[in-house]
């Protein structure tokens, strides 16, 4: 007498094996399809820049198929890379960016260390305050800064307007707050016991910063450096406002104002210039993509 008679008469469901994995395969196919679509959308402009840069002016004005180069030529590249003016732009941009990166790190790292580790009166408010000032955009500040620098030049005789070194003053306002924020996040994630061990081992605050925190938070430092460099390199508004003479211009402004002479746009050269101008950030991105992205997301997710 079995109490466990299996009900053979009950309705049986037809089980479809493999339907789940088929769904997954289709989901994957659709994903790749749309990703490819968006990738094309993302890459069209830079690829078009490349295509155009390899065209001679003759080919451009001939208005043949814009998506293909029939007679590729490097004349645009040669023209720009031998042009003193263009090299001057590159040089100015490089100088400004490198110095700004150095200045930014010198200001941000100690400040972040103090804010993350050394609790002092007002440190929490200061940290949030730093974050908030990042929300005051350059498009609000450029006018009063313009007037301030003009006045400064009048009062002290040191000309600021129309000199590339004025950018060294204003660029840090764009890079320092966010870099400080990034570093605070990284420093805060270092376990407290490490400070205490260093304290007991006999390290001063400075030694703790330089021999422990900076090495351990190196990825954050790299991310912040990349961020500061890219922001400085790409800046457009401030240099547009503060510098006008050709030899004081940085890349973004230089390309736009000098290659567009009157109504004649030398598009071949313009696209070449734009591509060369975009090269440094793109190269850094290609080799250090993870740090690049870490810098971006650090602010929000570690915040």
């Amino acid at each position, binding site marked *: 007498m079995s109490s466990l008679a299996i009900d053979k008469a009950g309705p049986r469901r037809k089980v479809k094996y493999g339907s789940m994995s088929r769904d997954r395969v289709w989901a994957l196919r659709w994903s790749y399809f749309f990703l490819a679509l968006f990738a094309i959308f993302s890459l069209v402009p830079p690829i078009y820049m490349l295509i155009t840069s390899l065209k001679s002016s003759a080919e451009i004005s001939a208005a043949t198929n814009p998506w293909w180069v029939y007679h590729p030529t490097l004349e645009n590249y040669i023209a720009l890379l031998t042009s003193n003016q263009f090299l001057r732009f590159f040089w100015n941009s490089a100088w400004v960016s490198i110095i700004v990166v150095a200045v930014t790190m010198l200001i941000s790292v100690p400040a972040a260390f103090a804010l993350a580790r050394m609790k002092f009166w007002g440190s929490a408010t200061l940290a949030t305050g730093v974050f908030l000032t990042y929300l005051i955009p350059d498009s609000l500040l450029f006018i009063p800064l313009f007037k301030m620098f003009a006045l400064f030049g009048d009062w002290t005789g040191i000309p600021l307007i129309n000199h590339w070194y004025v950018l060294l003053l204003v660029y840090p306002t764009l890079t320092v707050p966010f870099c400080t924020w990034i570093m605070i996040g990284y420093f805060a994630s270092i*376990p407290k*016991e*490490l400070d*205490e*061990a*260093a*304290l*007991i*081992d*006999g*390290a001063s605050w400075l*030694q703790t910063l330089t*021999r*422990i925190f900076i*090495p*351990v938070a*190196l990825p954050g430092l790299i991310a912040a450096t990349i961020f500061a460099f890219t922001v400085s390199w790409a800046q457009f508004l401030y240099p547009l406002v503060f510098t006008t003479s050709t030899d004081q211009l940085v890349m973004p402004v230089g390309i736009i104002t000098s290659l567009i002479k009157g109504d004649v746009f030398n598009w071949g050269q313009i696209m070449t210039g734009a591509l060369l101008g975009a090269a440094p950030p793109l190269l850094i991105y290609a080799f250090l993509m993870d740090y690049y992205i870490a810098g971006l997301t650090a602010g929000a997710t570690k915040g």
Partner: protein
Amino acid sequence: MADVSLRKVVKRYDDVEAVRGIDLDIADHEFVVLVGPSGCGKSTTLRMIAGLEDITDGDIVIGGDVVNDVPPKDRDIAMVFQNYALYPHMTVAENMSFALRLKHFPKGEIKSRVDEAARMLDISDLIDRKPKQLSGGQRQRVAMGRAIVRHPKVFLFDEPLSNLDAKLRVQMRIEIKKVHQKVRTTTVYVTHDQVEAMTLADRVVVMNKGRIEQIGTPNELYHKPATRFVAGFIGSPAMNFLPCRLEDAGGRLNIRLTDRLSFPLPPQRAARYQNVPRNDKLLLGIRPEHLTETSAHLESGVEPFDAVLDVTEPMGMETLVYFTLEGNQVCGRVSPGAGARDGAPLRLAVDLNNMHLLNEGTGAVL
């Protein structure tokens, strides 16, 4: 001379008093363990000795000097942390030599000290590895090595074994004891595990709610606890506490547990408790090993009684038995062959020569 003294040390956080006036004298070369439940103030006390926390009131003296305002690095102490706190970007050798390098010790001296400590701790072949390549036990040894090379006046250990699994903990306990035998540095060791306290310490300081309950050698604390807290904290399984009362019956002093259960006290106990008021609410403190199975020949002071077991826990070497007396769970230890079974009755005997009598209200041991 590396003796440590705490005099009326107090630590207050806003309105909360974490440490409420501690007096403690630790002699040179002594291994003292601060033990107690979490929140009792033992870690805070250790950190005050280290200089990682400010002292609200009182004095801490190391080697004869008051060090209240002296920063950690000038106190000549070394500390081993619960989470090891090894510098992740440095090798084992660099971790161990960091403090010495900061003080600009000559390279030869640094190398010899590091090698000596590495040999002592059996980590000589790990010298060039980074912390993330080491296991938990190895990391703990490196942390100890870091402390040893400094030849400090005092070692401070902050629950160093809590992050290790049970087997490793036993091993490391032995290592620590061996190191202490070799190096003989004054040590203050904090733990919540009373087994560690008992096995490692020269003297144990039991703390509770910011105060010291009792200071003594492990034996003293085990056999002569001064308060209910210490009696219940030391020893595993814990001591049983049964409400009881003293009564005079037929010229003898008896102790009455329930309506049906009452035992005559052995002579020395009867003498000791003669003056305890008979109306007082008292607790009988009896350790599980003194509640065993009855035998044919019982010594004086050992009284038999019947109990119905709730649960038995066969441990191999012995069997723990649990039964209920007037709503209180009681634990006893019998030998494996005593025939203890869940739910079955068993005749037990209580050894009143090893009893403790406590005042229920004050918790004091009489």
